[in-house]
C-alpha cells in the first residue's frame, strides 16, 4: 500500500520523537560524564561540553583514588554476586526444569516457584536479615549470592523447562535405552542440546541480579560486599559537588547490561516473551 505524504510525515515525526525520548536521557548522562563541572552548573546549561573531560573515568578506574576504590570494589562485588548467583541458579534450575519437563512434576509446583518471586521482597527480608545476622553472615558476598540464586531460580527453571519441552524426547529415550543414567543423559545429551537456552537464561539471570538493589541495600554495609547499585545510591546521596562523577558511574554500570542487551537482543526478547507472555 502506498502511503500518503501526510502519513509519511506523521510516521517519521513519531519515529523521531520516539528516538529523542529514548536516547535523550542516555545521551545526557554520557555528556554529563565528560563535561567539565563548570559546564554542568551553568544556568542555563551548556548542552555541549566545551572540552572533553575524561578525568572522572580515570579516577574511577584508579585504585589509589577514593572513588576508584569504591567503584572498583563495588564492581568486583557485583560481578561476583551476579555471576555466582547465576551459576548456582542454573545448576539448581536445570535438574528441576528437567523434572517438570520430562518427569511429570506437577506444574502447580512450578507456579508455586514462580509465585515466590512475585511476592514483594519485604515479605522475606526481615527474617532473612535476622537469620543471617544471627549467623554473622551479613555483609558477605556469599549471603547475597544465596539470596539472589533463590530470586533467579524460579524464572530460570521456567525458561529452561520451556526450552527442554521442545527438545526431541526420542534422543533422551535413546540414551536411556543405551543404559545411560538421568545424570549422564543430562550432562552428555540434554545440556549440549539446550546450550542456546542456557546462554539466554544465564544472560537474563545475570541482568536481573546485576540490577537488584533492595536485598543488597539491607544485607551489605561496606566496601567488602556492597554491589554497584548500592554504591551508586551512596554516590548520589553523598554530598558530591560534581554531578559528572555520578553520571560516569552510571554510564559504567550501564555498559555491561547495555552491551549484552544489544548483542543478544534476539535471545533476550524471546526469553522475555517466553517468561511473560507464555506464563
Amino acid at each position, binding site marked *: 500500500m502506498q502511503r500518503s505524504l501526510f502519513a509519511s510525515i506523521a510516521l517519521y515525526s513519531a519515529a523521531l520523537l520516539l528516538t529523542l525520548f529514548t536516547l535523550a536521557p542516555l545521551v545526557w548522562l554520557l555528556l554529563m560524564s565528560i563535561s567539565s563541572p563548570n559546564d554542568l552548573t551553568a544556568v542555563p546549561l551548556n548542552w555541549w561540553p566545551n572540552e572533553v573531560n575524561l578525568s572522572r573515568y580515570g579516577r574511577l578506574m584508579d585504585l589509589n583514588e577514593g572513588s576508584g576504590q569504591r567503584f572498583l570494589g563495588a564492581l568486583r562485588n557485583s560481578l561476583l554476586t551476579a555471576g555466582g548467583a547465576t551459576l548456582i541458579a542454573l545448576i539448581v534450575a536445570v535438574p528441576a526444569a528437567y523434572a517438570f519437563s520430562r518427569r511429570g512434576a506437577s506444574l502447580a509446583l512450578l507456579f508455586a516457584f514462580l509465585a515466590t518471586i512475585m511476592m514483594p521482597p519485604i515479605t522475606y527480608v526481615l527474617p532473612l536479615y535476622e537469620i543471617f545476622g544471627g549467623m554473622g553472615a551479613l555483609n558477605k558476598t556469599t549471603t547475597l549470592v544465596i539470596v539472589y540464586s533463590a530470586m533467579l531460580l524460579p524464572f530460570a527453571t521456567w525458561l529452561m523447562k520451556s526450552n527442554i519441552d521442545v527438545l526431541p524426547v526420542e534422543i533422551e529415550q535413546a540414551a536411556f535405552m543405551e543404559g545411560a543414567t538421568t545424570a549422564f543423559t543430562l550432562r552428555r545429551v540434554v545440556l549440549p542440546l539446550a546450550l542456546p537456552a542456557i546462554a539466554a537464561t544465564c544472560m537474563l539471570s545475570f541482568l536481573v541480579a546485576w540490577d537488584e538493589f533492595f536485598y543488597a541495600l539491607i544485607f551489605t554495609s561496606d566496601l567488602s560486599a556492597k554491589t554497584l547499585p548500592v554504591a551508586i545510591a551512596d554516590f548520589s546521596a553523598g554530598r558530591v559537588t560534581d554531578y559528572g562523577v555520578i553520571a560516569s558511574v552510571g554510564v559504567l554500570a550501564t555498559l555491561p547490561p547495555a552491551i549484552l542487551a544489544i548483542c543478544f537482543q534476539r535471545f533476550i526478547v524471546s526469553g522475555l516473551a517466553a517468561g511473560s507472555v*507464555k506464563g
Partner: protein
Amino acid sequence: MSAISRSREKWVLLLPAILVLSFITVLPFFQTLWTSFTDAEITAREQQVNWIGLENYIWALTDPDFLDALGRTLYFTVVSVGLEGVLGIAVALLLNQQFRGRMFLRIIIILPWAVPTIVNAVAWRLIYHPDYGALNSLLLQLGLIDSYTSWLGDPDRALNMVILADVWKNFPLVAYIALAAMQTIPGDLLKAAAIEGAGAWKRFRSITLPWIIGPMLVVLILRTIEAFRVFDIIYVMTRGGPSDGTKTASFYVYQEYFSYLRSGSGASYAVLVAGISAVLILAYYAGVRRDQRGA
C-alpha cells in the same frame, strides 16, 4: 524405568530447588506471618515477644499514613502501568510499520530496559535537579517556564515525576511483547479488512487489539506486580519525600522495620501488601490461562 524409581528421581531432581526456595522464601514468609501477630522489635537485647493477636492488623488498617501509602502505591501502579501499556502499544504499532531506520529504532528501544534501575533513578534525579537540572534548562530555553522549578520538591508533583522515570525504563518491555504479538497477525487479515474499507482505527480496534490483548494482559499484570513493590527508584529519587509525597507501601514497611525497628507491626504491613500481591498473582495466572486457551 519403574514408576517408583522414576518418581523418586523426580524428587531428587527437584530437591535442591525446593530446599533453596524453602529456606530463602517459604520459611521467611511464615516467619513474617508469625511475627505480624506479635509485638516483636528489632533489638540487640534479649526481648520478651508477646502474642498480641490481630492488634497489629487493626492498627495498620486504621493507620491513615499506611492507608495513604497504599493509595499512593496504587496510584503509582495504575498510572505507570497504564502509561506503559498505551505507550508500549503505540510504539509497537510504529515499529510494525515499514520505514527507514526501523531496525535502528528497534535496537535502541532496548537501551532503557538495559539501564539498571538505580542508574535510571540517579539519571532522572539529575535531570530533575532544581538548580542545575537538564529539564529546567531545556524548558527555560524553550520558553515554557520562567524560572527553575523544584520538580521533586513538590509533594503533589514528585510522584508523577517518578512515574515518568519509571515509564521511560519500562515501556520497552511492553512494546517488545506487543510487537511480538502483532507480528503473528496474518498480513492477509489486515489486507482483507483494508480492502473491505476498514479504516486504520477500525482495523486496530477490531483486529490488532483483540489479537494482542492476551499477551498484553499477561505482561501488564506482570508489570503491575512489579510496580506494586516499587522501592529502589523511590529510595534513590526522593527517599519517600517530600512530606511523604512518594512514600509507597514497600518504603513504608522498610522504614517501619529499619528506621523504627518495629518488626511486629512492620510484618503486619508486609503481610497486607503480600495479600494484595497475591490477588495480583492469581490474576496473572488467570490471565496466562486465558491467553493459552486463546492461543
